[in-house]
């Protein structure tokens, strides 16, 4: 998981998640405030630069993380490029959409600016800190509990899945598409069984430490949280102002 890797290794790892969340929110708002493709592209550029130069996220990793979303963008843009209507005989008629270029430019620049804001947040902030932030934002505890457990068990189960896939491959379980689907069915069923067993074990382990309700943990303390949050708020406002000013 590349995002996870960067989230723990970047230069702003120890900055308060509230500050980073604030800046990302600023980026998202700015992306939507920007009315012209140029403005949105400008926002995208500033946010990407902040991520790469400020937080020192590796550009190569950044491109790889952004690739799937940009693929979605490309495919969707394709459908915006053409217009379809019925001709006289009732058959479908393809043509270049008249406003295709400007529509695509608007959507693509806004999407890229928003994506940049999302990537800024996730590439600089481990999920664990984001959960802390959500806790501060008073997200219902049920959801936070599920997130905490999901985060930890994600790694445990994906290791189990990886090991099982390897073990199946060692016995040629993926020799043909048909055998492969069969093997994957067995694998998923085994994981389902593990879901119960592991949940049971975790519940028992929590009980052994007197935990039988909502899961409570000590939140990490972030140095200079207030200062960083103020700086981030100012940067966000500047970003939104930039988006507005590039409009005209």
């Amino acid at each position, binding site marked *: *998981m590349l*995002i*996870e890797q960067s989230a723990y290794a970047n230069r702003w790892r120890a900055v308060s998640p509230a500050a980073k969340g604030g800046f990302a929110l600023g980026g*998202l708002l700015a*992306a*939507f405030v920007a009315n012209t493709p140029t403005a949105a592209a400008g926002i995208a550029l500033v946010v990407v630069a902040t991520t790469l130069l400020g937080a020192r996220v590796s550009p190569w990793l950044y491109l790889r993380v952004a690739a*799937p*979303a940009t693929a*979605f*963008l490309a*495919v*969707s843009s*394709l*459908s915006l490029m053409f*217009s*379809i*209507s019925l001709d006289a005989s009732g058959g*479908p008629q393809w043509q270049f*959409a*008249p406003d295709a270029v400007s*529509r695509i430019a608007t*959507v693509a620049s*806004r*999407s*890229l600016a*928003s*994506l940049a804001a*999302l990537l800024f*947040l*996730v590439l600089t902030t481990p*999920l664990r800190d984001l959960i802390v932030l959500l806790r501060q934002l008073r997200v219902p505890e*049920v959801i936070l509990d*599920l*997130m905490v*457990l*999901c985060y930890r*068990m*994600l790694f445990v*189960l994906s290791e189990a*899945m990886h090991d099982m896939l390897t073990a199946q491959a060692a016995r040629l379980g993926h020799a043909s598409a048909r055998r*492969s*689907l069969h093997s*994957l*069915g*067995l*694998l*998923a*069923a085994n*994981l*389902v*069984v*593990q*879901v*119960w067993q*592991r*949940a049971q074990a*975790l519940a028992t382990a*929590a009980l052994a430490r007197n935990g039988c*309700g909502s*899961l409570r943990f000590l939140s990490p303390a972030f140095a200079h949280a207030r200062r960083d949050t103020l700086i981030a708020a100012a940067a966000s406002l500047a970003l939104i102002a930039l988006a507005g000013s590039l409009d005209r």
Partner: protein
Amino acid sequence: MHIMEGFLPVEHAVGWTLASAPFVVWSVRAVRARLDEYPEQRMLLGVAAAFALVLSALKLPSVTGSCSHPTGIGLGALLFGPAAMVLVGLVVLVFQALLLAHGGLTTLGANVFSMAIVGSFVAAGVFRASRTFRLSLATSVFLAACLGDLATYVTTSVQLAWAFPDPAGGFVASMAKFAGIFALTQIPLAITEGLLTVLVVNALIRFNADEMKHLPLFLTRGARA
């Protein structure tokens, strides 16, 4: 298929978030009530969310040769019931946005609606209906997972078409375009996911019928109905 960050115009992003909100609130309440009764299920749902996430990373062999990933929502709805699956689906989508940059925060509402809400309810509803019509367990499971997937894909296409109507053909033409473009990956995926889910349920039943009886499965409740 999740809509990427920032792709929907602001009014659509807000609109779908508002549309999903009541379902999420309802699911939070349902899960809380369930946890009051069975506190140990807190862990179960957390691990289930991790399971759905891990499953979505699985590469399925696909009919068209393109690789596809299962959503796991159909299987989840059959195992845990649609009420819990809305919340689990929400967590899964949040994680996909935050750990994989797949989907996004502004489009979270739209994605939750198409996958966690429509996907879970269609899967659970189709399963109930198929069992009522006395279809075999395998057929019912296949239809549930497959149609759950298709419903998600159709809903996403509707969301996109509504946001970007075709300048000439309007909503319908746009719907045809989006649905057509994504059909290439989504229809084979729905079929493969249906088959996979049948294999999983079959394997589960063979593992141990005894133990399955003790599990609070939507599936077995459905089977009895």
